[in-house]
């Protein structure tokens, strides 16, 4: 178990290193540098600035300095936001994105399992047909359309009751989080519902279900203890990649609902070629995603004893 975790973590570190290197090379291939965005500075000031940020060294030297600092967990100072450390930017804005993402995943997982189980119970009857129709809608409508419609709905709801039922945009309280995270989770919820349904229908024909039924267990017990628990496994497997999808999709929802998440800084940094912020956010996101996938795999081992972790 421990050996497996360590092995996965080592592979994860290599992946993050690869992402960092590829991003570093790609970033420096782009013509221009972050100092170009400033008003025309004299050659002397430019030289000083380059010395301050270490841009006067060769690319190879810069790369190794960056790797050394990264190993210490220091991403340096932002080029475009005066004297703001990249670590501070991440610390201030990542929790917002993470809260949004975790809530969205929570909605998606709970909703997906619940709806999926329901469709399996009511197979080919009206509830199944209605839910599966919604699922197809959920898969086919882009998240930004959901976000816009969700906001439109809030506006109408608020004006209908004459009071602010839920805030339309912004961040701060749990009420701000509800709509954006629900909207963000809808696509994933639809996917998970579909997966859960087929998984439930597959499990229902297994021998152990027949055995349980033959032994005279109550249908409720069979449903929860035997069918649901076994059917939930594939859902857990896709949860890892879905976390990645939700963190990238989160940016659009952050944009529509004016949420101060990390995504905005990331896109801004790329547009302004802010080297340190690009590297910091990319490496951070990469590490976060790798960690999530590893955690889901380990969790899978706990849920399914058949999976032998090597």
């Amino acid at each position: 178990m421990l050996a497996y975790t360590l092995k996965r973590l080592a592979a994860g570190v290599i992946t993050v290193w690869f992402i960092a290197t590829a991003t570093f090379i790609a970033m420096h291939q782009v013509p221009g540098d972050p100092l170009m965005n400033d008003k025309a500075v004299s050659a002397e000031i430019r030289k000083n600035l380059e010395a301050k940020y270490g841009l006067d060294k060769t690319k190879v030297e810069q790369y190794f300095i960056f790797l050394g600092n990264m190993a210490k967990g220091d991403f340096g100072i932002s080029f475009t936001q005066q004297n703001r450390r990249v670590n501070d930017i991440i610390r201030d804005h990542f929790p917002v994105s993470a809260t949004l993402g975790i809530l969205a995943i929570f909605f998606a997982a709970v909703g997906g399992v619940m709806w999926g189980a329901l469709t399996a119970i009511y197979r080919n009857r009206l509830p199944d047909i209605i839910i599966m129709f919604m699922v197809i809608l959920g898969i086919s409508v882009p998240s930004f359309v959901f976000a816009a419609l969700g906001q439109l709905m809030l506006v109408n709801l608020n004006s209908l009751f004459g009071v602010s039922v839920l805030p339309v945009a912004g961040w701060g309280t749990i009420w701000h989080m509800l709509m954006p995270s629900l909207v963000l989770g809808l696509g994933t919820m639809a996917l998970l519902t579909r997966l859960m349904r087929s998984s439930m229908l597959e499990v229902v024909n297994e021998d152990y279900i027949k055995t349980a039924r033959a032994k005279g267990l109550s249908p409720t017990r069979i449903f929860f203890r035997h069918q649901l628990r076994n059917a939930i496994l594939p859902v857990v497997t896709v949860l890892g990649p879905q976390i990645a999808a939700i963190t990238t999709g989160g940016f659009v929802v952050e944009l529509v609902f004016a949420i101060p998440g990390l995504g905005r800084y990331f896109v801004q940094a790329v547009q302004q070629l802010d080297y340190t912020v690009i590297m910091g956010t990319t490496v951070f996101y990469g590490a976060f995603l790798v960690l999530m996938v590893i955690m889901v795999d380990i969790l899978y081992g706990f849920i399914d004893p058949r999976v032998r972790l090597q």
Partner: protein
Amino acid sequence: MNNLPLTAADFEKATANISAEQISRPSLSYWQDAWIRLKKNTRALISLYIVIALALFTLVGPILWGVDPSLQDLNQVSQAPSLPKTAVLVGPYQRWEGVVIEDFPAEPDDYPDTVGDVQNIRTFGNPTTQAVRLVWDPLEGASAYNIYRNNSYPQDYNDLGLPLGSTFAGNEVSYEDRLSLESRDYYYSIVPTDGVDEYESYAILQVKPALTLTASEAMDRGLIDSADESMFGQEITLQFHPFGTDYLGRDMLARLMEGARVSLFIGIVAPFIYVIIGIIYGGFAGYFGGKLDQLLMRFADFVVALPFLLFMILFKIAFGIGPGESGIFPMLIALVLLLWPATARLVRGQVLQIREKGYIEAARLLGAKPHYLIIRHIIPNTMGVILVTLTFAVPAAIFTEAFLSFIGMGVAPPTPSWGSMCNEGVKTMLSHPHELIFPAVFISITVLAFNLLGDGLTEALDSRMRSRE
């Protein structure tokens, strides 16, 4: 013990019956069989028709409709879908002197605490979108009037709407409104003032200006050939916008057709290219296996882990596409370079399975060369899975294009794509929801059709399904 009705004829020697051995049904190839099963699937078939209709919409639509998608029509800005509209032809705008009652004092002698409502508001001449001219009776005690305009009926004194302006004397009892008028109901309120503060009394007039077009504007847009004064007052039909217009008065239908070209081009070409790359890469890795396979697949895993958005933007900058320029080509390259590993992995898995099959072994024993094996046996047998991947890759690519254009990283205006149209529509979604809804519906229908078609193909191409029927 039992008495079966047997006759002597039953004990005669039987002749060989050829017809029982005959294959009575026509022999079907794998693809014919799949096509028959796909045709039985109503949902998949409808989706196929929708896909064909979308292709026609994109390719033939602009020729049939023939409206320039970038033609701005500032007389019909943000129009909801409607039947063809008509406008009254008028001459150029003529100045209006207004109405001043000479024998009424400009300043009242004393300022009462309260005054009554303004009486007898009426329009002077016909209200048109060129100008709405209001006239009312002078009010005792007022030294000026404020004029407000609201789009809905004012509920109370605090709900009079947009302050348009004010007159400067108690006997100046007219106002001319020329502020971006549309052909819709307006509620004008006149509030008397004592020169500084308003009296809390108001009177309302409902006005619906007629849509007008000056002769020179009509000639500019080719609606009439020549204009002379005898034609003024005549009704002419404006350009028809069945799907309404956007915030610059551009025809939504024409833009949707134009946008479909971008969205479907990227949505179909990008997956097509990266699926081919994936087949070659995955086929190579799967067929040769061993260390090479390990190395190739590890590289594919790394590519998957790259941050998509960052590389997309970097490609865009690297191609020298600044903000405000449309970057269809870099977007295509980025999609291809970053999304191929999924197909490669899938094809590799398929090839690994097929490689061990008996018929491959047999062909190899008969002396087939590797390239013959790959082209003749392995690729045709992976085609089903590849086709399914392709149909699911199309909606994914359309989604990605829409997402990128929506956040302003993809196709930039004025080039329309469904995603960038949504981006523009979101800004005005409260007042003009159709500008968001149409492109969003088109994206959704396209993605839906490809998804259902993919589902249908999966079932049709899965030979295990055959035995279940």
